């Protein structure tokens, strides 16, 4: 049961999200979470289960995430849901997220921005980061960029469901979350979402794939294997006959490795492999 103050906050949040006079609508609160990690996870888990069950009955409806930093995709269960939607040809979530437009043209700049945002709420974990990048690279979601953001964040799906977050600072790790059932409010927020999407810019998810190819490909492995033996200067690395003869874009691999934190360059231009870089090299 949620108390009166929480209901008041819910109605206020809906108002900010452009739902006029929300109290006039019939709203069923399926789940509510206080601003704690475990509670937030519980409600998100319930939403993911709901999406999976809607998939079974072909009732997914319009699926939109209005987000700040696309953190929903760092949730492994939600990644699985998105992947399942793609695999079963059930459409995909539109994900509107905040990023300066100049960053969406280039794979490295795009990924670097996202990693910096995901890292702001927890310690960096390269495997989780890469799994999230992979899911986008497979086009399991449809990304749109929005370069200014100061809106209530929510997700809509299944014709009548809403996962709503209280207004929060972008850096807030936990927040109050409601999983709601209301056809009317879903309709309003879907329309609001469509308006926001129409103002956003399409992001080529293929750029995430380009990033992973640069990161995992031949040139990258070549560099990491060399650096595993000793640190060397960038010029020496790039003048390697193998890279010169075969690799089309060794700079791309270098950038990808650096962005993921697998290599570091010191002030003298000497490049070294990092412990996570060794981990990555030995992982496949």
């Amino acid at each position, binding site marked *: 049961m949620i108390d009166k103050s929480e209901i008041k906050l819910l109605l206020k949040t809906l108002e900010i999200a452009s739902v006029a006079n929300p109290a006039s609508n019939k709203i069923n609160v399926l789940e509510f979470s206080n601003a704690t990690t475990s509670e937030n*996870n519980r409600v998100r*888990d319930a939403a*993911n*289960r709901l999406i*999976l069950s809607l998939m079974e009955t072909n009732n997914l409806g319009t699926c939109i995430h209005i987000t700040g930093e696309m953190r929903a995709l760092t949730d*492994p*269960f939600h990644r*699985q849901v998105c992947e*399942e939607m793609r695999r079963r040809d059930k459409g*995909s979530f539109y994900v509107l997220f905040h990023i300066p437009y100049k960053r969406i043209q280039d794979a490295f700049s795009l990924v670097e921005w996202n990693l910096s945002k995901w890292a702001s709420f927890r310690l960096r974990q390269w*495997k989780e980061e*890469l*799994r999230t990048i*992979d899911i986008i*690279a*497979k*086009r399991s979601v*449809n990304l749109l960029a929005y370069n200014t953001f100061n809106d209530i964040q929510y997700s809509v799906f299944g014709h009548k469901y809403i996962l709503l977050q209280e207004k929060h600072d972008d850096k807030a790790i936990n927040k109050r979350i409601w999983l709601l059932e209301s056809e009317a409010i879903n309709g309003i927020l879907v329309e609001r979402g469509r308006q926001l999407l129409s103002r956003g810019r399409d992001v*080529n998810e*293929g750029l995430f*794939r380009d990033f*992973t*190819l640069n990161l*995992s*490909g*031949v040139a990258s*492995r*070549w560099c990491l*294997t060399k650096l595993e033996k000793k640190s060397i200067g960038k010029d020496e690395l790039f003048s390697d006959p*193998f890279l010169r003869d*075969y*690799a*089309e874009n060794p700079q791309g691999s270098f950038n990808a490795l650096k962005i993921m934190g697998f290599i570091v360059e010191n002030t003298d231009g000497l490049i070294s492999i990092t412990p996570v870089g060794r981990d990555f090299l030995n*992982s*496949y």
Partner: protein
Amino acid sequence: MKEGLIAEANSLMSDISMTREGTNNFLTGLKIWIGASSHVQEIINIAKNYREVFEKFGATILSIDKDLGDIAMRRIEDADLILMFAATPGISARALEILFRSRFEKRTIADKLYIYIPEDYASGFICSRFNFYNAKIKHLSKSCFCAENNLLFRKCLYDMCEETLNKRRQKALIESEYAPKIGIITALPVELRSVKHILSNFRTHIIREEDKLYQEYNHGTIESKSGGKHKIVVARCGKGNIKAAIEASTLINKYPNVEVIFMVGVAAGVPNVKDARQHVRLGDIVVCNEYGIIKFDMVKRYTKKTEYIPTPNAPKYEWLTRVENHIGNMEGTPSCWSYLDDILEKEKIDRPRTAPLKDTPWFEGEKAVRQPIVPDHDPKRPRIHIGAIGSSDTVLKSAIIRDRLSKKFKIKAIEMEASGIAEATWENGRGYFVVRGICDFANDDKNKVWQPYAAAAAAAFTRDLIESMPLMEESKKDH
């Protein structure tokens, strides 16, 4: 000419094979489609040779119908890499159609499509359309599109190696995402709910592949008190030993790193009102001992007698040793009680007060016998018993049969799944262990009142036990 290509491929791949494998099957697992003219003899020869060489190194070559219908598009989408030699108008047009349809049908084909095109065409209309669709275009001199020049081959091979490595990396990442070493199987939803509460980093992995069974696995971790986290996978099998054996085998097949499977849930207890320490009460916990699981429905039935012929397998040795030491060292308020309280609170379960009374040991004539009380033990807390556990596919509701089995096999609990788990793990070279909370006495008065509490008690003790087990050194590095 093919020998030249093979030598070229060997050279590149042995350079790359500073990575661990040899070159022979370097492209194994890679599915490719090569789109090339079927009218220009030079291109036909190139494509034929390339296909043969790539196949030699392990790649699977897809064959796609010329008509780009829905089936053909699906097959193309199934490819990991699409190589198109756009040296002729026909192939350029097909590449454009694929790109167009990929975008408007929201397919991923364009991301995997590599177009090799003579550089003379770089400023032409076709190339500008390729660029519009963000295609990966490789410009080469026209002379490369002949059998004698290996540069085109080298470019294709390099792109294939890139894709192979990326695919291999992705596969390893997916496998490491779900690499549990401990499996827990429960039978009833009430048991599963309690077990979920003992896991940290909980998440669900639902698998529903075409033509395969629906599988739902719950993943999480339990922190070891010696450092590191045990990776756990939990599944629910439903009632009975056959279902349990199937689930255990499926789980091992799906997660080959699983070393031991725990059966955690509720069971009937075997009371002993004459010996307080041997008396198993409702809410107590029974874990298996070295005699393991007695499959008491494995019998030879003669006209006048029944001969029991179970062949029990011992539970996993290290867990048996650990549980004996763990119980031996339990003092004061063991942490499993706080875990139990936590589950009870989350599941809103109260410890029941009722006890079934219609049972032989509870009555002497018309007079009810009091349950014996163990001194120095809080009667509201479960006691933990180690002993043999009886298992069959029969719901036992007979105190007489229960007592007969107890006398013959010294069993402390009776349930319906553990022998299936024991058989399946034995057959698959894995270990098993059983933790059961006692919810009834397998008598006429058997009911479900104690099930939630007993399930919670079993789950809480399982957490406590797993926490007490150190991880192997290499497992610690996973985190």
